[in-house]
């Protein structure tokens, strides 16, 4: 798009949307949000960027091939789901690791639940951006 207003606005929006998408991803653990919606918002950020620049610039700013991102996300999401049965529990049973716990506090939690959400985030972001770029290429 050849509008100066849009280009300046898009640069601002790009960063805000990306931060917001991560916020939504992390918020999703106990409140509305999560990997799916976060990934969608992240994809919107790159689509906004694409509309102000072009496909090549978008690919450059994304650094990784969006398809690779999607499959990587799928892989860690699946791995997070299968951690449960690997440790003798049900599929998708959350696995927790508490780092630096003392007698009073449980410590810093690291969980397969968050890993799953990050996987979904990357899958959705990668897949949507890949689809949009592929479509734009044909138009």
């Amino acid at each position, binding site marked *: 798009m050849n509008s100066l207003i849009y280009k300046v606005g898009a640069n601002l929006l790009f960063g805000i949307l990306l931060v917001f998408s991560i916020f939504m991803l992390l918020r999703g653990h106990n409140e509305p949000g999560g990997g799916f919606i976060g990934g969608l918002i992240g994809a919107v950020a790159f689509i906004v960027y694409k509309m102000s620049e072009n496909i090549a610039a978008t690919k450059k700013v994304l650094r990784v091939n969006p*398809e690779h991102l999607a*499959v990587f996300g*799928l*892989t860690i999401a*699946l791995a997070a789901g*299968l951690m*449960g*049965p690997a440790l003798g*529990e*049900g*599929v*998708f*049973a*959350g696995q927790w690791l508490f780092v630096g716990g003392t007698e009073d506090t449980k410590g810093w939690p690291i969980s397969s639940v968050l890993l799953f959400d990050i996987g979904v985030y990357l899958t959705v972001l990668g*897949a*949507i951006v*890949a*689809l949009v770029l*592929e*479509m734009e290429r*044909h*138009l």
Partner: protein
Amino acid sequence: MSPVLWPLVIPFVGAILCFMTRHTGIDRWISVAAALAHTVVSILLVVEVADGSILAVQLGDWPAPFGISMVADGLGAAMTLITGITGLAVAVYSISDVGQRAAFSGFHSLFQMLLAGVTGAFLTGDLFNLYVWFEVMLISSFGLLVLNKGRDTLRGAMPYVALNLISTIFFLTAVGLLYGLTGSLNMAHLRVTLDGLEPSMTLSWVTLLLLLAFGIKSAVFPLFFWLPAAYHTPAFSVSAIFAGLLTKVGVYALIRTFTTIMPLEPLFADILLWCALLTMFVGVIGAAAQQEVRQILSFHIVSQIGYMVLGLALNSRLALIGAMFYLIHHIIVKANLFLVAGVIHRVTGGSQLKSIGGLYAAQPILAILFLIPAFSLAGFPPLSGFWAKYVLIQASMELSDWIAAGTALLVGLLTIYSMTKIWGEAFWKPHPAGDDALHGKGIAWSAWVPIGTLAALTVIIGLFPSPFYAFAEMSAQSLLDPSGYIEAVLGGSAP
């Protein structure tokens, strides 16, 4: 891991492996292997539920109705198996049908994702989770549609995506209303809660929205226009798997929702009945007007969807058995016809009926393999379609619904018309460019094997319908009386 989850995990793993190996050429074999494994575990699943038992798993060990339940009952397991079989047939077919460029772009990976989405939709016991599987299906099917294709495909893909998104909005609205009404989205728990509720305006809205949402997905009259626009442009493997499975997920969702979760109110059953009859009729008339092989077949999908929805709308035990029988029969036959259409295209060099011909002289075996699914589609005895139609028509007569019975018979006759049109033009008449045009155009083994196998399945179901009928009867029984389903999901202590 529970046998319910294997058919879900396998295609996901397959998708990841296919993507990693997409530049090496072994991705297609991984796809075949994954589809084979999917079929095998689905057979085991069907064997487990064949005695009427229902398997349920709670994901993450969260007890129902708080977590997500995955459930395999007769209908779910049968649909999973048929997904495996169709997936395997198309995976083998795509060995020669899908070119290197499409494979590099991740065709096999998307294909496995699509199978995962379809399987998930058949096995989930949670209404919101069903939406998630719909999204998995939608994204991967959209990817398959636009893969390395030009503007023509995009033109067909846009209405497909737009209408599916509208359907999603209806579905989510209904899910939201239902959650507000009952506080749960677990199918078994919904049934328990809804049974204790008085009929209300909200519940009618939910029914209407769900009918619209799944009606769009399954291409019921008057919401079917996206289907013939999208199904005739992509690669033949893609349109075969779409034709076999995608709209049938919509039909499955209709059947599941309006038997297990909430039985249809008489008013909505009437609406659905008329939609079903019009779907059957308009689809077959639309097909008669088409001149391109895949477009004729696409309109027939619409017409056949009508039969399955009719089974649900009639709302009797026999009619449900008929609908189930029809689902299974239709998926096999329709996928096969699209595969044959691919071979027709490769051998004769076209799909427009007036520019092709001469196949009977050049490929007599292919002619027979076309006639089997084509006649089955029209309902010739002793093929599978005959029994499917027979049960449905008998169910209509049992309810003295002569209009439904008459329409079903008439549409069967009109189906023969389009099938003979393809037969006459593509097989019987000489090729317009002379019969030499077909010389030296061989058919790869990877096309013969799936087409032959699916045709054989059609014949087997036709000759030995009783075990299939018994299975459908068992499944219909558990749909009409979901106490076993509820017991399996919620355990003895229904809250």
